């Protein structure tokens, strides 16, 4: 483990950015998002989670796949130049870091998604432990430890010091370039900081989310639960929860006609939308009830069944905070299991 005095953070950011582009949480017009570091950009140290999750770095909302140019009867295929340039993301929270392994299950299993894979290889993730977990957090319900975040490098920001722990080869390689400013230490100093986090995390109102009903009940029974008839009533059918969610991975592939060329791009899609699953014969999910049910069945039942019990939620609490009508995954999971 290594450490650095807190007042030298901007020096660290400068150094990181000189090695490869650095992104970190910063405030823009009242909302915190990952921004490119430059002088004058302040690291939003107090912000727990960005509005959008960190999945954008590997699975962006919009991504060009290819373009086609028509000249007479000839079609020319223009490959999309993928950004394989190395980059560093600082300030990813434990929940978002855990979401990457869920996305890996989807995009890195056969057939591998080359766009996602390239970005995963190019990116180095520096996580930061959550000193003050908030009411909406429930990552511990999924075995994620906010005091011990994963990633290529983990960072703890205590009073006065930044502690730095590389965890992967990528992390070690990056650290080698920074040995002159990061001094070695034994790491025992963060123990009490971690204990405080754990104490708070255990008191969080949503942390005791219990998913045993979902694990042990037949999917058809959950599917047919009468609770679905009531609980979706407040749902607006917007895509907010799916777009801020770090684990939602549905996308659509679309064409844009620019005159001479046609661009094929993919963009996030949302199971909450009325044209999701629309096929030639119509839409099998006709009302918001079916769409609403699908989202939670997928996260809490179908995904675990297909991925060795891994639940497709990391407890970041974004849906808890942002749903305009106060609906969220915890509420749904609890009500369906009558908890």
């Amino acid at each position, binding site marked *: 483990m290594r450490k650095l005095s807190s007042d030298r953070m901007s020096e660290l950011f400068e150094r990181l950015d000189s090695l490869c582009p650095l992104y970190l949480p910063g405030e823009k017009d009242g909302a915190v998002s990952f921004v490119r570091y430059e002088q004058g950009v302040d690291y939003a140290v107090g912000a727990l989670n960005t509005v959008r999750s960190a999945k954008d770095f590997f699975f962006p909302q919009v991504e060009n796949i290819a373009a086609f140019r028509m000249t007479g009867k000839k079609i020319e295929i223009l490959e999309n130049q993928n950004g394989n340039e190395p980059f560093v993301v600082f300030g990813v929270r434990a929940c978002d870091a855990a979401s990457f392994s869920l996305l890996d299950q989807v995009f890195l299993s056969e057939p591998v998604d080359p766009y996602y894979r390239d970005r995963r290889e190019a990116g180095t993730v520096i996580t930061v432990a959550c000193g003050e977990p908030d009411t909406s957090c429930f990552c511990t319900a999924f075995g994620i430890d906010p005091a011990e975040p994963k990633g290529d490098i983990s960072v703890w920001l205590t009073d006065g010091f930044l502690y730095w722990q590389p965890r992967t080869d990528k992390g070690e390689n990056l650290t080698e370039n920074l040995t002159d400013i990061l001094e070695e230490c034994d790491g025992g100093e963060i123990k009490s900081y971690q204990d405080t986090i754990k104490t708070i995390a255990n008191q969080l109102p949503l942390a005791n989310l219990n998913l045993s009903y979902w694990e042990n009940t037949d999917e058809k029974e959950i599917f047919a639960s009468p609770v679905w008839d009531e609980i979706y009533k407040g749902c607006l059918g917007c895509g907010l929860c799916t777009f801020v969610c770090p684990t939602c991975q549905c996308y659509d592939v679309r064409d*844009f006609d*620019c*005159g001479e060329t046609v*661009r094929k791009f993919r963009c996030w899609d949302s199971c909450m939308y009325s044209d999701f699953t629309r096929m030639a014969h119509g839409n099998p999910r006709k009302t918001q009830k079916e769409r609403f049910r699908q989202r939670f069945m997928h996260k809490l039942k179908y995904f675990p069944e297909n991925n060795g019990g891994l639940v497709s939620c990391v407890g970041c609490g974004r849906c808890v905070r942002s749903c305009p009508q106060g609906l969220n995954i915890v509420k749904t999971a609890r009500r369906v299991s009558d908890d």
Partner: protein
Amino acid sequence: MPMNENGEFTPLIVAFCCNWCSYAGADLAGSGRLAYPAEVKIIRVPCSCRVNPTFILRAFQKGADGVILAGCHPGDCHYSTGNYYTRRRMTLLFSMLEYLGIEKERTRVEWISAAEGAKFAATMNDFAAKIHELGECKRLEDLRCK
């Protein structure tokens, strides 16, 4: 920036012309041999009221540097009241575009009757001159269409 052989900026100007008045006005300008810039591309519409706000935005998206809408004089609409609706609609839309920081000189509405060939040519000359001054439209462009 699209240029002609002399290295001058050649804008793309879209003119939505009502079938009954302004389009006929353009015809009259043509048969009267009154010159107006070739940069003005006319799109004939059944009534100025047919133009909805997305037409204007789409024109800018596809590379227009200025959009002008020409219809019958208020009171003379072939369908009685179409252009009265146009008048309100475009006033509010153009005011919004200006509010969003789009140069207000890039949009215009003019009332040109079938008998006003000279007014048609003069309006288009004046409008095109303004767009030449402003240069390329950057604030409502779609980079994918470039």
